[in-house]
């Protein structure tokens, strides 16, 4: 179990997507893009379940130094010694293709303007725009 293997003061952090386990490491603190805004989890945090928005996960300290990851949609479980992020999409910043992200943004904006009175399409396009914008931002400051 993580509780035994983790040295005190270090959080076990894991980012899991439907395809793979992207990261399995330790860190002092984790910044998370929750749906309601960014939050930071430190060692010994109170147990929490939150839905994820789109944005960057930042790991501070830890065995492999600081690291950043782009995630979108999913949710996170914070336990005192462990943070598990279940994300629909998760990428290392180096894996982001900026031109593809720009294209995604352009497509999403087009969908948004053509959504008409369809609330679902509108919502979907808005979500896509947010993902694309966050992706571009993540690619910029890598």
């Amino acid at each position, binding site marked *: *179990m*993580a509780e035994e293997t983790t040295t005190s003061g270090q959080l076990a952090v*894991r980012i*899991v*997507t*439907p*395809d*793979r*386990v992207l990261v*399995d490491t330790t860190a002092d603190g984790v910044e998370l893009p*929750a*749906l*309601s805004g960014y*939050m930071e989890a430190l060692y010994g945090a*109170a*147990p*929490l*379940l*939150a*839905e994820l928005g789109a944005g960057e996960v930042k790991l501070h300290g830890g065995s492999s130094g600081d690291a950043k990851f782009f995630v979108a949609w*999913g*949710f996170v*479980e914070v*336990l005192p010694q462990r943070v*598990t992020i*279940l994300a*629909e*999409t998760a990428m290392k910043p180096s894996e982001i293709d900026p031109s593809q992200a720009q294209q995604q943004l352009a497509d999403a904006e087009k969908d948004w303007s053509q959504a*008409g*009175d*369809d609330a*679902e399409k509108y919502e979907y396009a808005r979500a896509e725009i947010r993902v694309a914008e966050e992706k571009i931002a993540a690619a910029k400051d890598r």
Partner: protein
Amino acid sequence: MANVLDLKRRIRSVKNTRQITKAMKMVSAAKLRRAQERAMQARPYAQMLANVLQSLVRRADLYGGDGVDVMHPLLVEREEKNVLVLVIAGDKGFAGAFNANVGKAAQRFVDGRRAKRQPTEENPSPGEQNIDIETVGRKARDLFKRKYPEAQWEHIDQEYDNGLAHHIEDVRHRKAPIEVTYDRSVLLAKLNFVEVDKAGHSIIDRYERGEIDSVYIVYNEFKSVIAQRVVVEKLLPIRKLGSPEVTVLEEMTEEQKEAAGRAAAEAGISVNETPASAQEKEAKTFGTADVDYIYDQPPQTLFRHLLPRYVTTQIYHALLESSASEQAARMTAMDAASSNASDMIDSLTLTMNRVRQAAITKEIIEIVSGAAAI
């Protein structure tokens, strides 16, 4: 009697065929390994998601007042008037009975559904049960498109508010009780979660709108190289989280298992079920910690957002398993084809040698009898 030259040609051609089947077998073995790995890597996520949903169900007040009304539409059971069947097969042949088995099983399922609606004593006047078929993979599409008509939609685009707004709607005109609605073969070609998610959402949308009352998937379940079976899984409505309702339609025979085992041993693939990784074991405890969580969103909201994801994960899982099964089936089939080719080469070589020997003997007899005559 064939002459030596003809036999030589035939042997050469069979040898070529054997080369090809051997190569195909090795390719499928490599693809199988990759598919197995993907299926393994997808497990932690699915497990964690199911766990969180279960713990949400336990903790949160998801059921209305007296525990009868369910809060989420995906949990509501309705009378099954319109059924959606998602059939997952492969794009290519040369995979033994893989595609045929899925097709047969799906057909039996559809026929069984229709037969069930005959009047019974408890239910003297059952309504018509309509079945929509969605296919994944070219083989499934070809099979069902030939049998059943395609669904027709009418695209309506009305302007109102003096042309300021549009009303766009696709209206379905059902002509036959069983129709093929969509072909989702694109899912197989890429097999990434984003595509599956889109397909999943379209199914969920239709379910929530009440266009369909239940959803089933027919696919090849992959346990290991020697344990595969065609199953029907009930996708919607969700009865019990984390343990889907599965009915087995077709299992491998002992003979098939033996053949598959042989092929796997030659290709160096383990026939055992892949053991659970440490991550997977830990995934089982995810979200089940015996603590009171702080919920960033109300548990009901979380639940509502997570449930569709659970359904998509289920479809994704079925696709991954089916693709692993397909590769395993192809590997076995190609192994059998290679060994058949070898047998054929042996028997042809034997015949060729006999023919050659016979020709020589005949010549000697001619010479000897010619010499004796002088």
